[in-house]
């Protein structure tokens, strides 16, 4: 637990899993959950570098801003998802391709 590498590996694993969810999930809410995993992995990285790079608290402020962004993104994304559901009766991201036709 006193090794920077441990935290970086955990963050890399969370990032990979989140990316996997974003690629493979078809449900828009599940894609959103993958994005949350990716943002969390970025936060773990910020705080790990903040602690092992001399504890100068800039990483903490950045992580705080990332959490704010995540809240904003979740609210707007859910509004979009509910709109999608009203228009298509499903939230399958593959079916929302009206602009492509």
């Amino acid at each position, binding site marked *: *637990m006193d090794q920077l590498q441990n935290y970086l590996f955990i963050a890399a694993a969370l990032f990979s899993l989140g990316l996997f969810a974003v690629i493979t999930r078809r449900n828009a809410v599940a894609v959103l959950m993958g994005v*949350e995993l990716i943002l969390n992995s970025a936060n773990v990285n910020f705080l790990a570098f903040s602690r092992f790079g001399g504890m100068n608290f800039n990483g903490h402020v950045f992580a705080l801003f990332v*959490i704010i962004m995540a809240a904003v993104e979740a609210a707007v994304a859910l509004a979009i998802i509910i709109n999608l559901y009203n228009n298509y009766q499903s939230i*399958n991201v593959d079916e929302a391709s009206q602009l492509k036709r």
Partner: protein
Amino acid sequence: MSELLFWFMTAMTIGSALIVVLHSNLFYSALALVVTLFGVAAFYVFLWADFLAGVQVFIYIGGILILILFGIMLTNKISSVNISHSKFHQGIAAVIVMGIFSILGWMILKTPWLHIVQQEPSQTVGRIGRLLMTEYLLPFEVASVLLLSALIGAAMLSRKAN
């Protein structure tokens, strides 16, 4: 003792993240996401970021996750099938993601990281508040405006058009 706790939290976080990514029932994925976010909050505590751990529990688990659960319940039958791509596509994605993970792991192992040993700070909230009011004042204000505009935008978007 705390070493043991660290590895237990690691196993719990990664395991529940696997459930989030792979479970076929979306509701169980959301519940596993609660465990993952708690595990990440525990890592924040290990990284001496107690304030951020509290913020994580309040905003992520208390706010974002409730929003996601609302999204699931409003738009989905709970036991809907077909929320993931086929096994073939999952295989391709798994290969790509494993490649990215191994590149990241190789980078982590090969880089000679700087390691500055520090004392654990007695308190973090005051330091963060001071930084927010001096060096990061402009981003702080911009974030508040962004929150307001996102609030209005989300309310506009989710209203029924008439």
